[in-house]
């Protein structure tokens, strides 16, 4: 059992969720509530990682993270290091690859709130900020939980993008999914089986806990 790879996987999935939560909330709410000219384009961009083969997304990210590219160059001038083959690099890649999994459930949840609930809150004296906290967030909670569950599970299982951007550096970019692949390549099928079972268990537990949380609501609309 490769505990280091498991810890890299869990760290990657946890941080992706943590960073995508505020970004997904902002982006999902904006896409749900505003009307602007380029909205379909924005939605298409957010959804793109869903339809792109992971290796293709990984290839472009690898190119963009290289020191010759503007992004990679800027990163190097700021931090002194590169993005390819680093944990930060796979974290950034993971954020992009998971954008649709985080944004779409949140967007749908915000869209399902009748607009007059927001207005009723304003007329009751709640500021937009307090309306978000007391009315909107409790109502989008199931969408939020489902976004986190999808993101977490998808990051644990992500393979193509991570391999392209991060390679398989022990303790840095070798996630459990990549470690399993390595074991199979080395004909260590029992090692691969243990790790696969572990990944299955962790994924199942995560999803179970999260859906349990989302389901714990007494109210329904109507």
């Amino acid at each position, binding site marked *: 059992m490769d505990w280091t790879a498991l810890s890299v996987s869990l760290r990657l999935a946890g941080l992706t969720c943590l960073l995508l939560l505020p970004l997904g909330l902002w982006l999902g709410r904006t896409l749900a509530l505003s009307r602007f000219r380029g909205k379909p384009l924005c939605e298409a961009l957010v959804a793109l990682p869903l339809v792109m083969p992971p290796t293709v997304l990984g290839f472009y990210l690898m190119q963009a993270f290289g020191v010759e590219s503007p992004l990679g160059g800027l990163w190097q001038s700021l931090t002194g290091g590169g993005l390819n083959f680093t944990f930060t690099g796979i974290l950034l890649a993971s954020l992009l690859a998971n954008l649709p999994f985080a944004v779409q459930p949140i967007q749908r949840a915000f869209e399902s709130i*009748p607009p*007059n*609930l927001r*207005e*009723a*809150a*304003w*007329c*009751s*004296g*709640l*500021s937009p900020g*307090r309306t978000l906290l*007391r*009315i909107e967030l*409790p*109502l989008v909670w199931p969408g939020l939980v489902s976004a986190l569950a999808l993101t977490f599970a998808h990051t644990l299982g992500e393979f193509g993008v991570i391999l392209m951007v991060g390679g398989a550096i022990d303790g840095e970019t070798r996630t459990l999914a990549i470690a399993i692949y390595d074991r199979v390549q080395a004909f260590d099928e029992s090692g691969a089986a243990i790790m696969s079972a572990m990944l299955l268990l962790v994924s199942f537990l995560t999803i179970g806990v999260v859906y349990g949380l989302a389901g714990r*609501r*007494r*109210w*329904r*609309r*109507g």
Partner: protein
Amino acid sequence: MAERDLRQARLSVQLQQAGPIPLAADFHCEPGELLALVGPSGGGKTTLLRAIAGLYRPAGGVIRCAGETWFDAAAGRSLRPQQRRVGLVFQDYALFPHLDARANVMVALDHLPAAERGQAAERWLARVRLDGLAGRLPSELSGGQRQRVALARALARRPRVLLLDEPFSAVDQVTRRRLQRELALLREEIHIPIVLVTHDLDEAAALADRLCVLHAGRSLQQAPAEQLFRRPASPEVARLLDRHNVFTGRVVEGDEGRRLQWGPWQLEVAEGLAPLAPGKRVSWYLPPSDVVLHRRGRPSRGERENPVQGRVVEMAVLGGITSVALAFDHCDDTLRFELPTHAARRNGLARGEAVGVSLLAAGIHLMPDAPVTHPESPHR
């Protein structure tokens, strides 16, 4: 309250814009008064209510309430909904589905110390007769109960104006009656302007002190129901209020003074004819209650007043009441009136029969300012 204070506390609304929703509304509502905005769906009623609440910003106009300017397009002033202190009951109530009745009301009680909000919310729920249901979620309440929670929430903030958007449209007839009765009682306790939006004319007539008729965002006439139904300002208002009996006549100087020429008849009119110049064409309206049927073979006193002869073209029996439409040779429009079904039977009224009726002079209402569009008569 002194007149000046009354003017201070009143709600006055003047709004204009060309589009996207055309508005040309001008009305006011005194504290303690209930003003009903009536008119067809899509007439801009809800938009006006939303503009008062600060949820919609029209292009031009002024909204004042309680001595404060809430909206002034020219001055670029528009208070946020939170600053206006408006109690708004939405058509579908807009209760927060994740909060129980008590918590729904508590949302509007942020101005109180946290420790007092729970009790205050329960007091408000008790006032709308929902004691004991404070812990129920909206989904566990009936339509009528939800409406009461919405009303309690709207009042809990001690609003300076209460706005009701079709508040009785989503409940059954029995509940509607009960809620209407409760609103009538509640009015005696809260001394603020109340604006009710409804497309139900009976409801408006029963509940409101005054009605404001709206069409395509324009306020056409404001008056108490009785006056509005007997004296509509124009054929358009009459049509919007579902009033029939709008005709066109000509002012003439007859042997017995000034009369209204309508087809072959010169009608006597109790009011409004004197200032009109002979030859002027004018629209006029007669409430159905001011049409008196001539009894067969038994002439009565009223028959001397504006007797006219028509032909029955429609008879609709609606329970104990029969609605009759008479046609005349000189115009396309029919004259409608109602009489008890037994009276219709006794008089042998039947389709195709010729009958005589009197048009009571006191009921004839002239609309000299309204444009006359058709050469001979029809407005309808």
